[in-house]
Every structure is written in structure tokens, then in C-alpha cells.
């Protein structure tokens, strides 16, 4: 198939535009390296790629063993998947028998990650068979010469912070609004759980019949609203919002509150008529609570007989006034003369974590004169 000439024009323009902004749109090397280091340092200790190597003082103390040691190091590096071989200018932080083979985490060397005496000269021939040489984040029982770099979690239980949760049963779903976490714990994410009874333990995974309805998980502290669009109309549901740390431990929780969603509301027929230079659309405004209204979207399509904003169809307009009951679409802007369109007005309730359909008109089929 021949490429569309218009496609080629657009692709060429895209190339030109990217080239023009290449210098500014390329990340600074220092920024890239800093961010990389910071992110990788947050990986679990066991996730670090081990380095394998020798310290110079060790080598000088046992020069005759250098060839053997180098060979053993290469074998060990292959077994543990080390990406870096190193020669240190000083002894490894942990005093070990001479000569020692040290395996340490790339980013956070800790004494506990030192391989156990793989260590004596006779043992260096096959150090690779020693599985304990692989770094592990689990603290060893052996005393270490200095404290680990990261403090261990405080063992005393911290009182849970309180989240305030309000829920609104709307047409089409339940809107969940909770207060921003402002406790002292290390926030990682929010999740709200649901049950059909008023029992929702403060725990994750959900217990006691509670479920995670999905769509409420976010790691963004400021995102504090979501929708449960899967809730069945006419059923009373109970909810509890919670904040968690990175270990999925609850650090804040709301009380349990309930709501009952209603079916998606029908707004009736959508009127469409030609006026000078355009098409006028008229409908009955949504009469439900303002808490369930964010905006009207007037979705349209030439092919889709049931156009829907939430399913990606284009829209003629977005109107933020709940009392709006009409709109004029200028001819040629979206609706083109001589073409037939399927159009409907939809009421959408948007939240921080997605929107849902609240109400809609019937689909109007309209040919633009």
C-alpha cells in the first residue's frame, strides 16, 4: 500500500519539530545520572547487582595467590551475576581473614553482605559454590562492626492517622472523596475497600468479605477522589479509605461510610436543528445533585451509533454548567455539511482517578444541511 502523502507530510513535520527542540528536549546528563542513582538506591537491597573484587592491601599481602584469586573472582562474578569487578584501594570495611573475597551491593555496601570466608587460600579455588556469597537484605545473626546504613523500622506501633471519607451515591456510580494524609508515617499509596456489610478490617489484602473495587489505588498524595463505577445500582455499599506505607501496612484509615448508587439517568431526547451557520442542540439538563456533576460532553461519531466520550469518541463541546441546556456547533468546525452524525449529550462526573457516566440523552441521528 502506498503511504498517504499527508501522512508523509505530517511525519516529516514531526521530525523537523523534534530536531528543532532536540537540545532542550534531551535530559541533562547530570540529571539523568542523579535520578538513576536515586531510583536504584530505592530498590530493595536484594535487588542490587553485586560487585565482586579484591582490595589492594589484600593482594599485596598475598602476591603469590594473585593469579588464583583473579581466576576465582571471575568465576564468582559469573555465578552471582556481578556486573562490576573492582579493585579497592583499601581493605573492605569488614575485617575478614586474609585473603578475602568480598561481595557487596553496588549502592549500599554493608558489612553483612561480605561473603563468609570463602576466604582461606585453599577455598579460593571454588568460591562460586558458596551460595551465601550472594547479597541478601536479611540481617545476619552475626554482630557487625558498625551500624547498618538504614535504620530499621521503629518497633513500637504508631497510632493510625485519621482520614475523612465522604461517599456520594450518584447515578452510575459512587463518588469517593477522602482527606489528604497528613500523618507522620511514610506514605506510599491510598486504597479504598468496599463491602456489602459494615465490616471492613484495616488491612490489605482485604479481609472479612471486603474487596478492593479497583480504581482507588494511587501513590499520589494529593489525589484524594475516585469513583466506584462497578457498584451495582440499588445496592448499599460500605467503604473505608486507607493510606499505606510501602509494605502495605495501614498508616491511616477512615471510618466506614455507606452509599447506594443509582442507575445511569436518562435525559430523554436530544434535539438538533439547523440554524444560521450551525447546528443547535437542546436537551433537558441533569437534575441530580451537583456533587454528581462535573460537565456535559457532547459526544459524536460518523460510524459509532452509540457515541461515548468515555470510550474515546470525539466531542463537540464540554460544558461545565449543570443548568446548560443548549449548544450551537458552527458548521464546518466539527460537523460538516452533507454528513450524517450520531450525537448524544453525556453527563460525566470526573474525579482525580477517573470519571464515569452519570446521565445521557438518547442518540440523535442528524444530517448537516
Amino acid at each position, binding site marked *: 500500500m502506498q503511504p*498517504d502523502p*499527508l*501522512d508523509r*507530510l*505530517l*511525519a*516529516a*513535520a*514531526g*521530525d*523537523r*519539530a*523534534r530536531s*528543532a*527542540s532536540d537540545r*532542550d*528536549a*534531551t*535530559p*541533562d*546528563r547530570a*540529571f*539523568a545520572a542523579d*535520578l*538513576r542513582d*536515586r*531510583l*536504584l538506591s*530505592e*530498590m*530493595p537491597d*536484594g*535487588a*542490587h*547487582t553485586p560487585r565482586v573484587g579484591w582490595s589492594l592491601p589484600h593482594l599485596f599481602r598475598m602476591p603469590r595467590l594473585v593469579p588464583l584469586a583473579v581466576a576465582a573472582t571471575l568465576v564468582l562474578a559469573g555465578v552471582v551475576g556481578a*556486573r562490576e569487578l573492582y579493585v579497592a584501594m583499601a581493605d573492605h570495611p569488614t575485617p575478614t581473614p586474609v585473603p578475602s573475597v568480598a561481595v557487596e551491593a*553496588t*549502592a549500599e555496601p554493608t558489612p553483612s553482605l561480605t561473603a563468609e570466608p570463602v576466604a582461606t587460600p585453599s577455598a579460593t579455588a571454588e568460591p562460586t559454590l558458596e551460595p551465601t556469597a550472594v547479597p541478601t537484605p536479611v540481617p545476619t545473626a552475626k554482630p557487625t562492626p558498625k551500624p547498618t546504613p538504614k535504620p530499621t523500622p521503629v518497633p513500637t506501633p504508631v497510632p493510625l492517622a485519621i482520614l475523612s471519607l465522604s461517599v456520594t451515591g450518584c447515578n452510575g456510580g459512587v463518588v469517593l472523596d477522602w482527606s489528604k494524609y497528613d500523618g507522620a508515617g511514610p506514605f*506510599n*499509596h491510598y486504597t479504598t475497600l468496599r463491602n456489602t456489610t459494615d465490616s471492613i478490617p484495616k488491612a490489605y489484602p482485604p479481609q472479612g468479605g471486603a474487596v478492593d473495587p479497583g480504581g482507588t*489505588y494511587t*501513590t*499520589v498524595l*494529593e489525589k484524594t477522589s475516585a469513583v466506584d463505577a462497578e457498584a451495582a445500582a440499588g445496592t448499599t455499599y460500605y467503604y473505608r479509605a486507607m493510606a499505606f506505607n*510501602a509494605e*502495605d501496612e495501614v498508616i491511616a484509615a477512615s471510618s466506614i461510610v455507606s452509599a447506594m448508587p443509582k442507575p445511569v439517568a436518562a435525559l430523554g431526547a436530544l434535539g438538533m436543528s439547523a440554524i444560521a451557520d450551525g447546528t443547535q442542540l437542546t436537551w433537558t439538563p441533569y437534575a441530580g445533585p451537583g456533587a454528581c456533576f462535573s*460537565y456535559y460532553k457532547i459526544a459524536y461519531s*460518523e*460510524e459509532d451509533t452509540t457515541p461515548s466520550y468515555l*470510550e*474515546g*469518541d*470525539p*466531542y463537540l463541546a*464540554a460544558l*461545565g454548567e449543570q443548568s446548560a441546556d443548549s449548544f450551537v456547533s458552527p458548521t*464546518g*468546525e*466539527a460537523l*460538516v455539511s452533507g454528513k450524517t452524525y450520531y450525537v448524544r449529550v453525556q453527563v460525566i462526573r470526573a474525579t482525580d482517578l477517573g470519571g464515569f457516566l452519570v446521565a445521557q440523552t438518547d442518540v440523535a441521528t442528524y444530517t448537516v444541511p
Partner: protein
Amino acid sequence: MDGPTSGSRMDRDRERTLVARARSDAAAFGELYDFYLPRIYGFVYRRVQERSVAEDLTATAFQRALEAIRHRDWRNDAFGGWLYRVAANAVVDHVRSGRRVVSLDGADGSGAAADAFAAALDRDELRNAMSRLSVGQREVLTLRFYDDLDADEASAVLGCTRGTFAVRLHRAISALRGAMVQETTDAA
């Protein structure tokens, strides 16, 4: 470091393997980071036009990526598209945080990118035709031709299915073609 070169895509199987390993393997996450950093940064920069802001938002996107990968519920196997989506959301949050009244259209930072793209069009009637399109149509064209995203990535940014994106792209190009005809007619 690679620039956002046209046509460079990470092999899907390779990407899935890296994502699966990245939960416990820093090197795997590092490889994903090295591949996507210039792309995500460029995507963000083209929308915010400010280096320090682009760095902040890019860092936010990758921070969220790391958290998501480590979270037990991670199930999305289209990591690249998801990452663009996170970056787009970060841009939206940023743009909206600076406004007292949220506009429903153009509040996603896509305007700057669409404008830059339109400015690179080397034919007047094409540039003028672009300005006749809806915000949504310009956005689709910008994602595809300026940001050079594939269907999976662009559909993730828009929060629609791959099929829907294909339809929207087709319609946008058709609308552009129609607008060019109109431009030519108007000029005659």
C-alpha cells in the same frame, strides 16, 4: 544517551521480561530507565517548555513507575504506554495546579506541543488546516507525528483502546484533509 529517535521501540517481549525482573533486579529497572528516560523527558518538555519543570515531572513519572512495579498488584504489561500515561498525568497535574479555574479543554499541556508541531508544518494551507481541527484531533496528530508514539503508547496516553486510537487518528487525518480542501477553497 539516545535521543527520542524515530522508530526506536523496545521489543515487547524484552520489555515484559525487564518489567517482570525489575521488581527485584535493579539492573532490569536501570535498563528500562535508560531506554525510556530520554523519551519521557522529551515528551514532558515539549509540553511544559521549562527544563526544571520537565526534570521534576520526569522524576515523578519514574518514581511512580518504580513504586508501581514494586507493588504487588502490577499487572500492566504495556509498560511504555503506561509510563507515557503517568507522564501525561503529571503534566496535567502540573498545568492544573497553576490555574484557579480548570479549563476542560487544553488543560493537559498538549497545547504547547500541538503549537510546536503546527509551526513545523511547511505548507501554509496545512498549518491553517491544522488550526481548524478540534483540540482532540490536534492532540491525536501531535502524539502520533510529533511525539512519535506508537498506537499502544498513544492510546495509553489518551486512556482509550488501541482500536479507538486508530479510529481517532484516521478521523483526524480525514478532518485535516477536509480542512485543507476548505483552506484551498477559501483562498481561491
